[in-house]
């Protein structure tokens, strides 16, 4: 029994009236975990029962602890008839299994019923006592930390990035089981909720196991998705990046003084014990007897038998152990050396040797993770065996026998790679897919970005026959990933970052999509440069090709990459092309980098990642969306799939045209956070591409857009065209002003590029498509002005241009982006407002594609407008992480859901900021103009930030007086605007102050209440004066003005809500409004119960809404996730010496709430 789960039911409040006669309720509670159920006493006749139960104890495997939720059911006791259920609470106890996360769940949690919604709250206490698990063959992966955040979490340091982890589990959807015909909607919903809880628990556990195999202790960028495949089943899949993380804590001297030159074994002690041991609750009490127990089962034979009897997994476990244990051994050794930039390459690690000499100590101590710690005792001997097997030629994998296919593959390839790679190479491990769902990286990690790679495939769903072997689904994804990998390779890149996978399902047709950004990563953080062998070999010639010139390939090994980094400035390095310019996989317009003038850059860059913090950006960014709607014929099965796959390339092509046009219209040259969503319905296809456009200083200035008519005979037509041309030019000029894009005029010097093509073709995009359902996303056109020509040859094109121009400009004071941060804005205030908005639009008549396009585009635009209006009180503010999701829930219905966060920023600070970025440009413009200098001083007292790029740029710039003048004019207008904002800000500050005064007074008012209550109120009315703890939610990975001091665990919740009285609940809007509010409330409550005060990286991954107004019914499924954290305001942080204490008191006083 490796774990004891304890739960205590304290009280309930605000319960619904279950007995009409007395207007009261006789409530009791069932606490269920696995197959064990406990009950509290009935607390008669109260809506605020005080059960104050004993501790209910469940003795369970940690495997179950990971898979199962604790299920709490509140019921109304009925003497004569069956007890009525009031509602349920599912508690995910996973956060309690990791010593670094939460230690107790305590607080008021909403009681939820799938038919009635939230029905009161229940106060519970849940704890877990984990015992040392000495079982080598365990299936659990307790202790692996999970983060939804797609960057290295704020209070951690990445010791190593191990690579891509993925897993999927499938099951039958309870909604489609035969029994669903006879059970109530409630029972069916609950079965579904429970199943998904179980499946995601299992999935997380399995991913955790993989991470342990790889030697990591955490998963970052964990993205879990559901595919509701209807008849054919239910798929839960997840991807993430396995990492070894180390907590940065200034309070612990152990990590602060990280010994840098000691031997590996010594080195490893520090993170292993110095940091973790205090946090492990189990190391104190219970382990003694258990350790004894496992000592007895220490010999291999015994432990095997034990395993086979205790679990129902494969019987022949020997090879598996080998597979598992080999991996952790090497990485740990390496991991410790990697933090030291000098001792860069772990050469000392041939496993055979290593295990004999140094392995035993590091194994016990190295992992900064309790799970491993627990395992340690039984570990070492086994490893000797394994290691020696490996030393004898790397055949361990082949001897393995009945391993899981994948595992064997990995082992094998890893071993082969090891043999091939010379000792100077970094270790190549696992790394079947060098994918990273991360979107932001530690500085220096990302060397070059190639461009977006994506792959889609259309599949026909069939019933999943054996849930235990989800091979088809695995194989499908396998295909797609392979394709992505080959695309990346074609771009000369070794890795794919910002990687994500998604599906869209309609009836039995399913589109699987994956996309990411091809990139070259620094080998400093990875131990492998996750290339497989052939790739490396095939790349070799490429490298040779270019090394002759100034380029050095980033993955040539550490020395090479180090040398490379020396000469490349961080602000532009990532823009430099990773592919060979003479061997470009597509026609591209290359120029020398506008920052450093040494390396080539493309003229446009599309990526799926966040803007690197160190990037040089001119002006501000903005959200750019391409929207497309295409009609399609109704079809069934295979035919339908064919129709869809035929349409897809066109759809993607159009989306890219739109994106490119809109990008140029805004005078920008790069897209970040690109996300293309394609949704299928019975009679149409929807495509929505969202990204944040920016002007990268390193890239050439985009040319304008020129319109060319095809029939120049008609004069009015000519007129029309020139009008339109004027409009477009005006818009570009306006946008440049709006986004403060004032790049320095640079003498055009396109070097070594192909001759500009004088084509009059309307679209200069070329898609390099290897298969029908894939379009490479690197589209390149001329860097020269006016080279981008739109040709109007039919009404469609006219419509296109109209659509181009109808995009509503963001109102004054607003900015928007779909990435984490907005370039040019840093001074966020603490005011944040996360929101979700959902719209469903009904199309009535049969429409043309053009008409549909318009409607769809308007729908998105209007939604944005509404958001700006709603949030007008927060101006100046930026809508960050605007995440649009489109769906076609039914024929003729389009659903758009948006989740984002609005963040206010400081206007005065903005001024300073603007000035800073202004300075950059000023420096670049470098005209030693008196007027400008004055302006500079006026704006700013700070010294201009040193810009290494200024001098080369300046040389080419001197004398371009004209541009400088234009610049200064623009700035003064900007200053004007700022000053008017300052006025507004003062006003707002005033109201804020008033508000806060009010708050305290109301608090004062509330405080005497408890004393007075005893006398004046009836005793059975228990009101509490304390209000509910405030929990912030944000889709970003950080909270402005605050420091995250602790990650409490992942929040991953799935809810179903159904109603049979739609009209009574306020129609569809009323129903969904309530449900979303309830979901927020439940997320907040669970976070507060964990002791947290915020959710970061929050996302609503699924919002499936179905209605049947004729039957007065509706159903909705919502899946949300995020990371529960504790944050402290930076101001508070300064005042309190002991951070953690302040944080816990900070949150607990709110969380208590009687």
């Amino acid at each position: 029994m490796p774990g004891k789960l304890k739960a205590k039911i304290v009280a309930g409040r605000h319960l619904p009236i279950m007995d009409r006669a007395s207007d009261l309720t006789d409530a009791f509670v069932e606490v269920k975990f696995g197959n064990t159920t406990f009950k509290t006493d009935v607390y008669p006749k109260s809506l605020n029962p005080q059960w104050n139960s004993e501790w209910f104890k469940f003795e369970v495997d940690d495997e179950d602890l990971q898979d199962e939720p604790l299920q709490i059911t509140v019921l109304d006791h009925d003497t004569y008839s069956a007890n009525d259920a009031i509602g349920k609470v599912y508690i995910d106890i996973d956060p309690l299994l990791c010593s670094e996360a939460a230690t107790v769940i305590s607080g008021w949690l909403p009681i939820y019923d799938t038919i009635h919604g939230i029905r009161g709250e229940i106060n519970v206490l849940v704890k877990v006592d984990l015992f040392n698990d000495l079982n080598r063959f365990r299936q659990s992966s307790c202790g692996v930390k999970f983060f939804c955040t797609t960057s290295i979490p704020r209070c951690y340091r990445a010791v190593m990035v191990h690579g891509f982890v993925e897993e999927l589990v499938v099951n039958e959807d309870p909604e489609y089981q035969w029994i669903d015909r006879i059970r109530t909607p409630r029972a069916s919903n609950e079965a579904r909720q429970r199943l998904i809880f179980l499946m995601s628990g299992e999935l997380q556990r399995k991913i955790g196991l993989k991470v342990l195999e790889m030697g990591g202790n955490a998963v970052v960028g964990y993205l879990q998705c559901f595919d509701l495949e209807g008849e054919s089943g239910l798929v839960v899949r997840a991807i993430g990046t396995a990492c070894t993380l180390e907590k940065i804590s200034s309070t612990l001297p152990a990590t602060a003084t990280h010994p840098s030159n000691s031997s590996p074994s010594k080195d490893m002690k520090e993170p292993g014990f110095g940091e973790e041991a205090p946090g492990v609750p189990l190391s104190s009490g219970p382990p003694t007897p258990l350790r004894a127990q496992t000592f007895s089962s220490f010999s291999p034979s015994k432990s095997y038998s034990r395993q086979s009897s205790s679990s129902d997994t494969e019987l022949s476990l020997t090879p598996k152990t080998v597979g598992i244990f080999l991996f952790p051994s090497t990485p740990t050794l390496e991991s410790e050396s990697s933090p030291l930039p000098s001792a860069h390459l772990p050469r000392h690690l041939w496993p055979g040797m290593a295990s004999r000499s140094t392995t035993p100590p590091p194994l016990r101590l190295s992992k900064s993770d309790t799970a491993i710690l627990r395992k340690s005792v039984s570990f070492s001997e086994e490893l000797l065996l394994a290691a020696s097997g490996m030393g004898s030629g790397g055949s361990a994998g082949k001897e393995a026998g009945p391993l899981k296919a994948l595992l064997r593959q990995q082992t094998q390839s890893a071993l082969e790679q090891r043999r091939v790679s010379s000792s100077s190479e970094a270790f190549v491990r696992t790394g079947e897919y060098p994918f990273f769902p991360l979107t932001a990286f530690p500085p220096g990690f990302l060397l070059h970005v190639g461009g977006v790679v994506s792959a889609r495939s259309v599949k026909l769903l069939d019933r999943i026959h054996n849930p235990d072997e989800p091979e088809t689904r695995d194989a499908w994804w396998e295909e797609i990933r392979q394709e992505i990998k080959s695309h990346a390779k074609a771009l000369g890149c070794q890795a794919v970052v910002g990687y994500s996978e998604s599906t869209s399902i309609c009836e039995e047709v399913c589109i699987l999509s994956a996309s990411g950004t091809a990139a070259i990563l620094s080998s400093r953080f990875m131990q492998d440069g996750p290339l497989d062998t052939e790739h490396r070999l095939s790349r070799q010639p490429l490298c040779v090709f270019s090394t002759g010139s100034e380029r050095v390939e980033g993955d040539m090994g550490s020395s090479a990459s180090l040398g490379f980094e020396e000469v490349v400035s961080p602000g532009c390095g990532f823009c430099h092309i990773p592919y060979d310019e003479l061997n470009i996989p597509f026609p591209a317009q290359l120029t020398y980098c506008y920052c450093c003038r040494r390396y080539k850059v493309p003229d446009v860059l599309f990526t799926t990642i966040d803007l690197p913090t160190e990037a040089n950006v001119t002006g501000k960014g903005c959200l750019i969306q391409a929207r497309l709607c295409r009609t399609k014929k109704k079809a069934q099965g295979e035919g339908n799939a064919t129709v869809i796959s035929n349409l897809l390339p066109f759809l993607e092509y159009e989306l890219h045209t739109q994106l490119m046009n809109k990008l140029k219209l805004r005078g920008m040259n790069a897209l970040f956070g690109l996300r293309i969503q394609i949704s299928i319905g019975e009679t149409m296809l929807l495509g929505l591409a969202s990204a944040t456009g920016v002007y990268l200083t390193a890239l050439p200035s985009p040319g304008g857009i020129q319109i060319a008519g095809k029939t120049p005979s008609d004069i009015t037509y000519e007129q029309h065209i020139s009008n339109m041309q004027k409009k477009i030019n005006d818009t570009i000029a306006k946008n440049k002003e709006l986004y403060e894009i004032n790049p320095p005029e640079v003498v055009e010097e396109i070097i070594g590029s192909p001759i500009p093509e004088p084509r009059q073709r309307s679209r200069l995009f070329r898609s390099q498509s290897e298969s029908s359902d894939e379009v490479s996303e690197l589209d390149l056109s001329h860097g020269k002005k006016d080279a981008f020509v739109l040709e109007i040859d039919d009404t469609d094109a006219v419509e296109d241009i109209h659509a181009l121009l109808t995009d509503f400009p963001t109102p004054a004071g607003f900015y928007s982006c779909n990435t984490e941060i907005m370039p040019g804005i840093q001074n966020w205030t603490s005011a944040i407002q996360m929101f979700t908005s959902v719209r469903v639009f009904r199309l009535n008549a049969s429409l043309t594609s053009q008409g549909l396009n318009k409607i769809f585009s308007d729908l998105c635009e209007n939604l944005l407008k509404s958001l700006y209006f709603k949030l007008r009180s927060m101006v100046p503010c930026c809508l960050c992480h605007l995440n649009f999701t489109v769906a076609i829930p039914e024929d003729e219905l389009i659903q758009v859901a948006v989740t984002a966060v609005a963040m206010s920023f400081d206007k005065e600070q903005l001024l300073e900021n603007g000035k800073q970025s202004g300075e950059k440009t000023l420096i670049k413009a470098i005209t030693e103009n008196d007027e400008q200098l004055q302006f500079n001083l006026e704006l700013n007292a700070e010294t201009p930030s040193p810009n290494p790029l200024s001098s080369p740029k300046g040389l080419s710039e001197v004398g371009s007086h004209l541009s400088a003048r234009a610049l200064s004019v623009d700035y003064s207008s900007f200053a004007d605007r700022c000053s008017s904002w300052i006025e507004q800000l003062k006003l707002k500050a005033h109201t804020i102050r008033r508000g806060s005064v009010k708050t305290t007074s109301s608090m004062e008012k509330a405080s005497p209440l408890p004393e007075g209550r005893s006398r004046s109120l009836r005793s059975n009315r228990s009101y509490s004066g304390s209000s509910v703890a405030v929990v912030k939610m944000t889709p970003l990975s950080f909270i402005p003005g605050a420091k995250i001091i602790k990650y409490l665990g992942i929040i991953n919740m799935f809810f179903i809500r159904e109603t049979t009285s739609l009209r009574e609940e306020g129609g569809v809007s009323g129903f969904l409004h309530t449900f979303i509010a309830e979901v927020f409330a439940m997320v907040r409550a669970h976070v507060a119960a964990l002791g947290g005060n915020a959710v970061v990286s929050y996302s609503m991954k699924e919002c499936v809404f179905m209605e049947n107004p004729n039957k007065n019914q509706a159903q909705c499924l919502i899946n949300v996730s995020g990371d529960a954290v504790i944050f402290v305001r930076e101001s508070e942080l300064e005042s309190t010496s002991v951070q953690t204490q302040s944080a816990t008191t900070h949150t607990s006083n709110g969380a208590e709430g009687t």
Partner: protein
Amino acid sequence: MSVELDVFVGNTTIMDKEVYQLWLNGYTVNDAVKVRIEGGVMEECEASAEVLLSDTMDQYRTFQMCERLLHHPAKLANQLLFQIPPDRQAMLIERYYAFDDSFVREVLGKKLSKGTKKDLDDVSLKTGITLKSCRRQFDNFKRVFKVVEELKGPLVENIRQHFLLPDQLARDYAAIVFFANNRFETGKKKLLYLTFQDFAFCAGQLINNWTVGAVDNMMEDMDVDLDKEFLQDLKDLKILITDKDLLDQHKSLVCTALRGKTNVFNEMEANFKNLSRGLVNIAAKLINAKDVRDFFIDLVEKFIEPCRSDKWTSIDVNLYLTHYTNSAHILDTFKYYAVWTRYMGVIKSCILRMYHD
């Protein structure tokens, strides 16, 4: 083509004060949108009517969902569904429980029953307040009444704690509850010139001085009923008018004190017996519930009207009542000083408050 569903949910619930007020005033969504357009919010924020409609619908929905909680304001603080900053919560409650003086004048002193509620459409017509708003206000009165009715202790304090209302509003509700409980007549033509605030002031006086709680805070009785013992004792005051000597003595004492101090001395002297009889009779009858109802009518008919017809100023009234009250203490055969002071204190301040046009 139509928007079928349109929702916006913020982690912190967004509520626009202006829209809230429109909702409270019982405007339909379309009317509210019209008002907002006229208010110029559109130009301010570059919005369209469509956006405004969507926003208004959304806000209305939020308010409707909140309404349930507003019925039990204490719940608003510890509910989990909406995350609302405390100052916003206070604003929501205060505005929800705010009422129109013109409305409350119509129902003040009436039984808060279903029958009265049925007549609200007439009230709505008469006052120009929407029926919806009338219903809300009426239901608020009724809800507060029901909760407080059976509670022990000071009425105002109970209301304030239970409904988290600001002090002034709690006092007003106390008045409404007190009037409803004692069914004071306020609708007669002669009383129409009085505002709600006049009555609220008087109610405050009565609550503070004439109820059981007024003398003994720890009493097991409530604030909403008048002190029966006191009412009983008031009968003893009759001696002031039944005993001829006492009456004359009282009159001469008052007249001596007043002489030369007012322009209406003659009228005062002439009317003394009448006025004194009026006031003492009111006191003596208060033991009957039916006469309690007519308390304000009686004050107007027996005292205020005669004075007004003689053109007394309120300074005159104040002077007269002060001396009238104080002189009784000097009367040798009159022993009910405590009761007299308790009675006259309230009567004086009520009359002074009610003595206007």
